[in-house]
Each structure stands twice: as C-alpha cells, then as structure tokens.
C-alpha cells in the first residue's frame, strides 16, 4: 500500500481527497445548521449542467461549470430571500432546471460524452494537476475567509440578532452560497454529482451529534471529513472499489457510531 504513495496519480488522489473532505465538511457545518442540506444536491446538479455546457462549447468543463454553478447559487439565494416558498422549494426548482439544461446540452452535443459520465460518479484517480491547483487555490480562499466564520455562525444562530447588530446578513448569504458552489464544482470531479450531498451533510451531521458548541461542531466536522477519506481511498486502492462510495460509506459508519454513542 505504501509503495502506491510513490505514484503521482495516487498522490494527487490523496491530496484532492483530503482537500475536498476538509472544504465540504467545513462549509457543511453552516449548510446543515441552516437546514440547507438539499443545497449540496442542487448545486451538484448545477455543476452537471455547467460541465455539459462546457463540453458542448468545447471548453474545459471546469471553467464553465464554476461560473454556472455560482450563478445558480446566487439565484437560489435571491429566490429564498424574495419569496416565502421555502428553501427546499427554491433549491428544488433550480435542481430541476439544472438537470433539464444538462440533459439538453448533452443531447445537443454530437456523440458520446464519457467526461460527463465521469462527473456523474466522480473519479478521484483521474484528478489532473490543474484540478488540484484549483482545489489548492480554493482552499487558500476559504482559509482567507476563515474570520467570516464568526459572522456566519452568528447569523446561523439567530438572523434577527445578527441584523440588529448591523451584520450585512443578506450579503453574507450570497457570499456563503457562492463559496459552497465553488467548492461543490471542484469536488464534483472527485466525489461525483450523485454523492456530493453526502460530503456536505454527513460529517457535519455526525459532528452535530458529538458537539456541545458550534466551534466544536466545526472542528469535529472537518476532522471527520478529512479522516473518512483515508480508509475510503485505501479501500478503493486495495479492493478496487469506487473511492467515492467507499468514502461515503465510511462517513455513514461514523455517523451510525456517533448516533449509537448518544443513546
């Protein structure tokens, strides 16, 4: 197993897995506590439409999917703020529109699109140096924005109190959803559209069960998100099973253990 770490594509897979695990589980804390768990799914499908559009236009899918998903994220936030439809409905509408657009773009493109299928289920072993570079860039951005955790946590705790303390809550909502969209797009290549939501929801939900405070929940979530990548990747390499599935099943096992511990 250790000699596998000498292989560049395995090194990239490991680095990508750890970065994705950390980024999704960090933002997942805010997403889950705001009851926006469905957002990960919605944006993963927006990423799918963006990838399909990129393939149709013969562009690198990532560069089309990033602005596409950010636009969808901002639109979801706008609809949430403007109407009383409820978050799940606002996300559900954009989810459906994204899938419809994705399928339409795919059908307009001549011939089979293997890349799109790879995006559907993710392929951690085919992460390119460019993909990894974008992930590192995004991780630096999230690190830079770490001080905003205080404002985001405060508005998550009580929106009204945050507004009374003059926090630009609506602006923070847009910023947070755009950041989630960026993280979802770069993660989708690794995790796959289908399993994207698990990376955002499960570590954060497990952390919620283990934590008396929101700070502890954040640390637990990132710890679990990063940790679950390791056995997942080892299983993928050792037993030749899909890495995304192995990681998500590890996350689910940890969730079950946390749930049992509480009883």
């Amino acid at each position, binding site marked *: 197993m250790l000699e596998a770490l000498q292989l560049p594509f395995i090194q990239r897979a490991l680095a990508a897995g750890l970065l994705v695990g950390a980024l999704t589980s960090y933002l997942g804390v805010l997403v889950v506590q705001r009851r926006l768990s469905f957002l990960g799914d919605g944006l993963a499908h927006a990423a799918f439409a963006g990838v399909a559009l990129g393939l149709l236009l013969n562009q690198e899918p990532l560069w089309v999917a990033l602005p596409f998903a950010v636009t969808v994220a901002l639109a979801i936030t706008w609809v949430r703020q403007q109407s009383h439809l409820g978050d799940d409905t606002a996300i559900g509408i954009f989810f459906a529109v994204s899938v419809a657009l994705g399928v339409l773009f795919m059908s307009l493109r001549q011939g089979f699109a293997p890349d799109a299928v790879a995006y559907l289920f993710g392929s951690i072993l085919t992460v390119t140096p460019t993909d990894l570079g974008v992930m590192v860039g995004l991780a630096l951005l999230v690190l830079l924005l770490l001080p905003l955790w205080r404002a985001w946590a*405060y508005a998550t705790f009580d*929106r*009204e*109190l945050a507004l*009374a303390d*003059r926090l630009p809550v609506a602006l923070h909502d847009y910023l947070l959803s755009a950041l989630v969209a960026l993280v979802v797009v770069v993660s989708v290549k690794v995790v796959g559209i289908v399993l994207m939501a698990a990376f955002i929801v499960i570590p954060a939900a497990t952390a919620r069960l283990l934590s008396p*405070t929101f700070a*502890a929940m954040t640390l637990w979530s990132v710890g679990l998100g990063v940790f679950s990548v390791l056995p997942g990747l080892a299983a993928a390499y050792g037993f030749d099973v899909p890495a995304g599935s192995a990681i998500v099943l590890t996350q689910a096992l940890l969730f079950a253990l946390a749930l049992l511990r509480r009883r």
Partner: protein
Amino acid sequence: MTAVAATLQQFSVRFGEFQALEEVSLEVPQGAFVAIVGPNGAGKSTLLKALLGISPGALRDAPTRVSGTVRVWGRPPEQVPADWVGYVPQVKSFDHSFPALALEVVVSGLRRGWPFRLTPQERAKAQAMLEQVGAGHLAYRRLGRLSGGELQRVYLARSLIRQPRLLLLDEPATGVDVLGEADLYRYLEAYQRRSGATVLMITHDWEAAQHHASAVLLLNRRVIAYGPPAEVMCHTCLAQAFGHVGHAHGLAMEGR
C-alpha cells in the same frame, strides 16, 4: 426639558396587503419604561424592529412599504451604535437545535459575532452577568436543554452585558412562571436605576405593565393611547384596542 430617546413620526409599515403599522407618532423620553400592549398582529414587534434598525422587509418576503420617520437619539436607528441597544427577541424565534452553551450566547452579546473561543475575561464577565439574573448555574448548560424561562434569563443577560442605553424586549415574560416574572421586573428595574436606560417592552400582561411601567403604549396598528398607565388602561381605550374588554382580559390571563 427631558431628553428624548426615541421618536416616531407618521410611521407606517405595510407588508403586501397587510397594514402592520399606520401613522404611528410618539416620543419616548430618556429613562422611560414603556410597556407596549396590544392584540396579536397589532404591529408591536414591527415597531421594536424599526427601533432596532432592522428594515421591516429584511425578515419578510412580502413587498414592504415604509413611510414616516424613526429616530433614536435623533439619528436613523441603523446609524445608532449597535452596542447602545440591547434586544431580547421572542422565545419562539430561538433555534433550539443550535449547539451552544448559555455562556456563549451571553458572550455573543459582547462580541456582536459568534465566539470560537472564549477568553477568560469574557467567561468571567458573562458568568457574572448570568449570576445577576439568577442564572449563574446555567452557564455551561446547552441551549437545547434550557426551559423557556431559563432561556429568557440567558437572553436577558446577553442583552444587558453590553450595558445598553436602550433595552427592547419582545414578550420577555412568555414561558416564565410567576416567580420568574417577578424576578424579571426586579432585574429590569435594578438595571434601569443603575444605568438610566430606556426600556421598551412588549407584554400581554397589562397588570404587570400597570405596576412596573412609567408609560403604556396601547397599540393596534395605530396608537390607541399612550401615556401614564392609569390613564391608558381605561375601559374605553382597552375596548378600542382589543375589540372588547372581555377578550383583552383573556389575553392578559394567557400571558401569565
């Protein structure tokens, strides 16, 4: 001449088809204790939020129309330094699932942000504040494990820790037992004596209002009456605010 803490002139708020407040004009003198009384949907919370500087549309999805002026110490409320104002929201608006200790909730009132780690000074200050409102033993209790009355104490400590000059409370006696309610008024009066702060409190309990407040605002979208409790709590005023007095009595009993 007494200094004025807050002024409203012809202040109206409309959410879609619903008129929440209609041409409300009033002046709150510095150091007053105003009890705001009125039926459900009378615009009481909308009025408090306007004084807080929360735009009435920020928490509503209906198209909102606002007219008239609100001034707090002569300024638009959103330009008043946030730490001059303490706010205790309604218990039912709390998210009980948020993982937090009572101590952190109190410190959030100092920081105007959510604390990642508490400094020893913050801990000590928040603990002392909780003890002042008879909730010292709750400091390390999780938010989700507190009763309505305990939560009210924690939120009161949170609003007082910044030593506000203006204290706004939205039904602070809801979910509190009779003993707790007596305590609540004791803390508020003690704080007011010490600081000279102005207090506006929404309540359904007009008997308490009569006892503790220096003025009562009887509101039903419009100002029905505003003045010393003995004058405002007259039969005709209450009948006008609540439709009929029997109903008003029912509300007063509910609030206890």
